[in-house]
């Protein structure tokens, strides 16, 4: 069968990834903010005569590259490795997205135009005359709504029909001013606006100097509350199911004649850690990602970056760092890769180093447990308290990111800063199907899969080394006391490096003196902690260490992969660790005086 290679290009946030996913049935990350696609993705689909390979390129405003992802696109177009280029445009803002198309049509002769978001344009009262556009540009054009199945079938037929045809090169003027005049002339012929556009009211509130921050805090609080509330029950059920299955597993292995050491390793080591991680981590992760994706698809993330950039500018930072921080709340690895959207290397490095300051999903359960035990207030349910503690933690994290960004850029990078341009996309009511597919299947499966692998390995290692840990705990006790905790906490964090989810179970295991980790209900956990000398001060120190310590191993690997720099890697380990230790020491000193 004949093979054809197609390059998908277009401005940021015009729905290239949605078109790509629809064509190939793949699950590339989509969302309502420019710059999600940070590297090229490749997918396939077949037609009766051809096998098509589609390359989804990062969004670019023009062929003059100024950032890493734009470079990927322009390099690829220069490489000549494709048969056809499809330029995806936005029907709601054709006057801007058409320019890139014309620039490409000026240089290449197998070009197709696809005008996406036709439904949204229609809702806004914008009519795009596809035939007229085709006539004016001399390029085959198809208008689609990428979320409609029928339109995707049309698109496939369109590619099959016109993909091979050569078009004449478009005659584009030299200067950018006259290029825009040409674009305007074409648009005046093809685009009809039947009514003036209305801007959304929500913007006014979200960026208000006083109401904005309160609204954002309430939003975080709401997400935390729903996450904690919704996760309680499924976590319990999963935990019980795993416990039952673990006992059956032990029974089967006994019947199979496996030696007791191996049974211990498999059941009490690997399986126990694995089941704990899954039952504690899985339900909140599903709920959090679901809520987060709704906000992301709706278009809230760039607004947060917009509001916070003023503060970042004061700290010599970059507003887009806020986008990476939001992603970091889900998973620091995702946040670290997201830092590619910043053009300047200094901004990128600072963004990566400070990303683990944002507590990822895996750290939520620790904060929730300790919060509900030690900060209980009469008359409030523990869920409300936990949500409140968690939200405060996130605020503390954000404040720390500002502080550290300032210190890093002043002391390490002489306060140099990069450029800031941020596109604020229109609010889009998310499609239920996109949310489910992208949130539940793509992100969760990959993060959970990794956690399962890491935690089973960690389980095996823990089972083997636990009997020898006692001396080390005593050895680390003085250091632990210095920062307001004890040796067991310090060692739990070190052993928890593979995945933050297992820090708490390791700690409880060390306190109990057993050789296997165990999940306890909240009452037992409280007794264990209090009998080991925990009070409010130690709880605060512990939470601070949870927020600020070295990133987990997977995040470190991602950092090294992204930057290829040992210096950044070392900084990402040292900066949060010393920040956390310093903060704990200060709190410890203060409590001594009080």
């Amino acid at each position, binding site marked *: 069968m004949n093979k054809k290679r197609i390059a998908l290009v277009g401005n940021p946030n015009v729905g290239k990834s949605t078109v790509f996913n629809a064509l190939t049935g793949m699950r590339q990350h989509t969302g309502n903010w420019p710059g999600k696609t940070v590297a090229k993705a490749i997918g396939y689909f077949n037609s009766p005569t051809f096998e098509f390979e589609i390359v989804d390129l990062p969004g670019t*405003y*023009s062929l*003059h590259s*100024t950032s890493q992802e734009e470079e990927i696109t322009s390099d690829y177009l220069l490489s000549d490795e494709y048969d056809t280029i499809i330029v995806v445009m936005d029907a*709601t*803002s*054709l*006057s*801007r997205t058409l*320019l890139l198309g014309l620039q490409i049509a000026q240089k290449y002769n197998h070009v197709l135009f696809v005008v996406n978001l036709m439904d949204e344009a229609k809702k806004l009262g914008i009519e795009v005359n596809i035939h007229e556009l085709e006539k004016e540009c001399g390029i085959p054009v198809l208008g689609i709504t990428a979320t409609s199945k029928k339109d995707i079938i049309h698109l496939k037929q369109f590619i099959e029909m016109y993909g091979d045809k050569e078009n004449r090169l478009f005659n584009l003027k030299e200067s*950018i*001013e006259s290029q*825009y*005049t040409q674009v305007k002339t074409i648009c005046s012929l093809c685009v009809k606006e039947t009514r003036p*556009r209305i*801007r959304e009211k929500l*913007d*006014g509130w979200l*960026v*208000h*100097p006083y109401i*904005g*921050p309160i609204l954002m805090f309430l939003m975080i609080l709401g997400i935390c509350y729903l996450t904690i509330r919704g996760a309680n029950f499924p976590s319990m059920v999963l935990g019980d199911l795993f416990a039952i299955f673990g006992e059956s597993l032990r029974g089967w292995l006994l019947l199979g004649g496996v030696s007791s050491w191996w049974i211990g390793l498999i059941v009490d080591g690997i399986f126990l850690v694995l089941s704990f991680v899954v039952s504690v981590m899985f339900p909140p992760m599903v709920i959090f990602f679901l809520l987060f994706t709704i906000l992301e698809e709706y278009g809230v993330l760039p607004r947060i970056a*917009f*509001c916070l*950039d*003023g*503060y970042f*500018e*004061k700290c010599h930072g970059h*507003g887009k760092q806020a986008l990476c921080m939001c992603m970091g709340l889900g998973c620091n690895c995702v946040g670290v890769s997201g830092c590619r959207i910043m053009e300047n290397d200094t901004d990128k490095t600072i963004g990566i180093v400070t990303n683990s300051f944002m507590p990822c999903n895996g750290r939520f359960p620790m904060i929730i447990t300790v919060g509900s035990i030690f900060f209980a207030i009469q008359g409030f349910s523990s869920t409300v308290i936990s949500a409140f503690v968690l939200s405060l933690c996130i605020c503390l994290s954000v404040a720390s990111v500002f502080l550290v960004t300032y210190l890093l850029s002043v002391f390490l990078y002489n306060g140099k800063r990069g*450029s*800031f*341009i*941020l*596109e*604020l*996309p*229109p609010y889009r009511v998310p499609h239920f199907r996109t949310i489910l597919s992208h949130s539940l299947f793509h992100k969760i499966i990959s993060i959970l899969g990794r956690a399962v692998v890491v935690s089973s390995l960690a389980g095996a290692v823990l089972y083997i080394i636990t009997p020898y840990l006692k001396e080390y705990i005593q050895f680390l006790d003085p250091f632990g006391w210095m920062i307001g905790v004890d040796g067991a906490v310090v060692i739990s964090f070190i052993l928890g490096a593979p995945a933050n989810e297992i820090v708490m179970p390791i700690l409880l295991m060390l306190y109990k003196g057993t050789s296997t980790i165990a999940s306890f209900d909240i009452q037992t956990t409280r007794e264990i902690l209090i009998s080991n000398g925990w009070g409010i001060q130690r709880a605060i120190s512990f939470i601070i260490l949870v927020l600020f310590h070295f990133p987990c191993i997977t995040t470190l690997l991602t950092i090294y992969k992204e930057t290829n720099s040992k210096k950044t890697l070392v900084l990402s380990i040292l900066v949060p660790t010393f920040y956390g230790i310093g903060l704990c020491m200060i709190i410890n000193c203060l409590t001594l005086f009080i």
Partner: protein
Amino acid sequence: MNSKLLSEMRVGDRAYIDYIEPMYLKRRLQDLGMVHGNLIVCVLCSPLKTPIAYQIQDTVIAIRSEDAAKVHIYE
């Protein structure tokens, strides 16, 4: 013709782009449609008065007021 800077616009103001002073963002802003004669509307101001969001070519983009001070406009 009343000549001003982009950074002097208030939310709701409408104006036309005149020219951009040479700076590191010039090419980027031109790509986004900030070329002579294009209509620009100031749509949003962030809590610290920087960045400010403008609507140009049916798209809303935010830039810092420091950079906006390099863009000349007329009404």
